[in-house]
């Protein structure tokens, strides 16, 4: 039963809206020093039992008390294919990793690694071999036990270019061969020293383990998910509509509470919010800040919300090859012209945290950054002075933004640039055209978004390394500095966090001095929401809902009366 006030509000709003519509219708540089990789000891990499497995032990007795049932999860994007080795979006990857597919190990969110299907891993002295000890007794959804043969087969499948696996580009250049040492031990023979290999294969889109022969060679037409080892089994996939998984009773970590999860594609954030209110959905992702605000203010009840604070960040990227921004002074002038707090306020309701580089606020990376690279806050006076002394002669800056969330960014940035004397040609484009212009370099300035992957250099290496091609898919700022490439290469040889921080500071300093990118910040525009009778749901802030050592994901979700 709704209160009369609610009714009055609804009817008044509807009435006013109708009248208004009817009326409207009627009226018509520091010197970089390459650092040598330290020689790690085998013990450094040795990891013992899984915290995931431990969680499962204590949960067994609670199982009978907790209600399962069917959970309907409102997704903003779809699982575009149940194929284990194609992942088209973060939502696609999260959904698979939260349910039916598992990697050997997993990033913990603070740069560490936790065991999943491998219980420990060890490298030889020169890091040219990686040996993984597999968890025993892990069953595939077919009932057969996972062994080293499955890992070898899965890895080889990914590394075969003819199979068009997403992880091919990550694994094939690093791995020479894979071999089964015994039933539960796998050895990867590397191409040279590869200390970061475990981090690379912790990404579900690179390598998940499926049974031998689960896919035919070159098979990309898949409409049924291959068996995995996750807490839920693949059940059904309807393209551009839904993905359904059901409980896997023999999951090695313990039986999940939920019997079934339906990942329902609801492209409209309003639709997801309404369906959460009507309880047609029990959990929804990417809810709007307005909806979250109404829940937090108590206007909408019986729902809980939580911001995905690390779900994504944005940066303004210069094209250093463009006639305007090939002058670093013009870039600096634009940097001081852009007040990112203003941008955050104007485009994202002030919801977010400013950042100076792609690192989580308050992290060790953030501390390192503060030591080397002081924030360039908006300073119009300084911007005007630098611009006046630069080569800028009033050319129109092609500010290219994507339709949707790019529009308010474009409006705010173009206004701020004009205020200091830039001429701006704001181009609001459909996503395909927007991407194409970035790939071909047909822009001067553009916003880009990305997400945190656990290591700022490994995350950013692709877009910082020289990429000398006509069509650029990774380093779209086109900034090329061979010294930086050397530093990045050396970073991959580091294993100690302190060494990594020192090296990161050098890399960050070069990028800071080059003034290639100005980071806007982490934007808190994505919210999870769930009904108040849903318990046990945890996320790790980055927008995913992956079951893991840090977050509970969907594996331990249950309903309370």
């Amino acid at each position: 039963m709704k209160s009369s006030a609610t009714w009055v509000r609804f009817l008044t709003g509807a009435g006013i809206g109708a009248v208004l519509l009817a009326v409207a219708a009627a009226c018509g540089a520091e010197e970089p020093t390459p650092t040598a990789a330290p020689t790690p000891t085998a013990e450094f990499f040795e990891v013992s039992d899984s915290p995931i497995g431990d969680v499962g032990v204590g949960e067994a007795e609670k199982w009978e008390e907790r209600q399962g049932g069917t959970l309907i999860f409102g997704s903003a994007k779809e699982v575009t294919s149940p194929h284990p080795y194609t992942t088209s979006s973060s939502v696609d990857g999260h959904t698979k990793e939260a349910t039916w597919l598992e990697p050997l190990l997993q990033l913990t969110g603070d740069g560490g690694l936790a065991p999943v299907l491998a219980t420990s891993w060890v490298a030889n002295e020169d890091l040219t071999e990686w040996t993984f000890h597999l968890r025993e007794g892990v069953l595939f959804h077919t009932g057969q036990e996972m062994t080293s043969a499955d890992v070898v087969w899965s890895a080889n499948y990914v590394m075969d270019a003819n199979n068009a696996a997403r992880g091919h580009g990550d694994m094939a250049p690093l791995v020479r061969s894979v071999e089964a040492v015994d039933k539960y031990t796998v050895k990867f023979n590397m191409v040279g020293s590869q200390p970061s290999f475990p981090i690379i294969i912790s990404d579900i889109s690179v390598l998940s383990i499926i049974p031998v022969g689960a896919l035919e060679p070159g098979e990309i037409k898949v409409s049924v998910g291959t068996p995995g080892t996750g807490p839920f089994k693949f059940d059904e996939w309807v393209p551009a509509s839904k993905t359904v998984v059901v409980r896997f009773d023999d999951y090695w970590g313990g039986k999940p509470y939920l019997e079934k999860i339906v990942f329902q594609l609801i492209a409209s954030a309003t639709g997801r919010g309404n369906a959460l209110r009507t309880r047609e959905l029990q959990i929804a992702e990417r809810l709007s800040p307005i909806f979250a605000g109404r829940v937090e203010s108590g206007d909408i009840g019986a729902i809980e919300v939580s911001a995905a604070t690390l779900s994504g960040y944005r940066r303004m990227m210069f094209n250093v090859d463009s006639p305007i921004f090939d002058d670093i002074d013009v870039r600096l002038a634009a940097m001081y012209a852009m007040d990112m707090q203003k941008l955050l306020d104007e485009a994202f309701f002030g919801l977010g945290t400013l950042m100076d580089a792609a690192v989580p606020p308050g992290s060790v990376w953030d501390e390192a950054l503060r030591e080397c690279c002081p924030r360039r806050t908006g300073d119009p006076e300084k911007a005007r002075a630098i611009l006046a002394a630069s080569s800028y002669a009033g050319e129109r800056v092609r500010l290219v933004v994507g339709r949707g969330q790019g529009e308010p960014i474009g409006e705010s940035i173009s206004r701020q640039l004009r205020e200091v004397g830039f001429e701006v040609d704001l181009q609001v484009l459909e996503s395909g055209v927007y991407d194409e212009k970035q790939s071909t370099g047909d822009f001067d300035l553009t916003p880009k978004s990305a997400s945190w992957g656990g290591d700022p250099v490994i995350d950013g290496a692709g877009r910082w390394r020289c990429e000398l091609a006509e069509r650029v898919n990774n380093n779209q700022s086109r900034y090329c500095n061979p010294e930086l490439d050397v530093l990045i290469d050396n970073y991959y040889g580091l294993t100690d966090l302190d060494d990594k921080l020192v090296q990161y500071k050098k890399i960050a300093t070069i990028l800071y001095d080059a003034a290639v990118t100005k980071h806007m910040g982490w934007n808190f525009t994505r919210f999870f929401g769930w009904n108040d009778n849903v318990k046990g749901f945890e996320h790790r802030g980055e927008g995913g809902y992956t079951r893991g050592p840090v977050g509970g994901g969907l594996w331990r979700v249950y309903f309370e009366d």
Partner: protein
Amino acid sequence: MLIRYSIRRLLETIPTLFIISVIVFSLVLLIPGDRVLVMLGYSGGDIADVISPEVYAAMEIRLGVHDPIPVQYWRWLSRALQGDLGTSALHSIPVIDIILGRLPATLYLAFASIFFGALLAIPLGVAAAVRQGTWVDRLANGIVLFGLVTPGFWVALMLVLLFGVYLGWLPTIGYTAPQDDFVQFVKHLTLPTIVLGLDFAANLIRFIRTDFLEQMREDYVRTARAKGLSERLVIWKHIFKNSMLATVTVLGFDISRLLGGSTVIETLFAYPGISFLLIQSIFNRDFATVQGVVLFLAMIVIFMNYLADILYALLNPRIRYE
């Protein structure tokens, strides 16, 4: 005579279809975006991507993107003629399977909306014409005005708030197949049907009312009345049949529109129809699906127009001889 006319009209659709196929194929080639990347699962770049040149090259060969455009067109057309609309780059399954999987939901929604709209529009349109200037006429005009000036998404949101959020009577998202649960099927269909049906009815009422008023001034109506026929017979037997010509035209266009053009409504209600598929495919640059869906919808439009022409000929025999 009717058979000859039907065959002639059917043959006339072939060049139209050919031109449409060229346009559809060419337009998709002009859409910016790299179909090789899409095929490899890179649809928006919100994950840090490292693209392997070997995988890219292998996929280029598989897709035949380096073949001359006429060769690519002929390959696409010859497969399309055999019912193979290609493979979705995003979903990696045949486009025809995706379309056929969504066709029932789309057809149910389209025909339910037409049924609801016609149920509302025909009596109201006739009554508005027969009782011109009375409250019935004003009511019909009000509905027409509301339907034409009010955006469907706003009506949809209001209905969702009222019947879904506040009253809790009807579901606000999704679809249930009738064979799975008929009651749920009806419930899921209700709100989108009302929204689309209202829009359809607004259009139809206008046409019926205007056409009816014109027919009422015709000589044959006066003759019918003069020979003593009851008003009911005059209206439903004589005027109604002749005023159906405009209705058939509107129906032909609106069925096509409802089958492919209810994108906003399908998105709001997360209704798994063809329109929603089309818009998702455009956003994801799933070129093969866009080509397949547009061609499929174009064929439906042509077929519905063809049907409308045949109905015209049935209703007005003079057309066959012109």
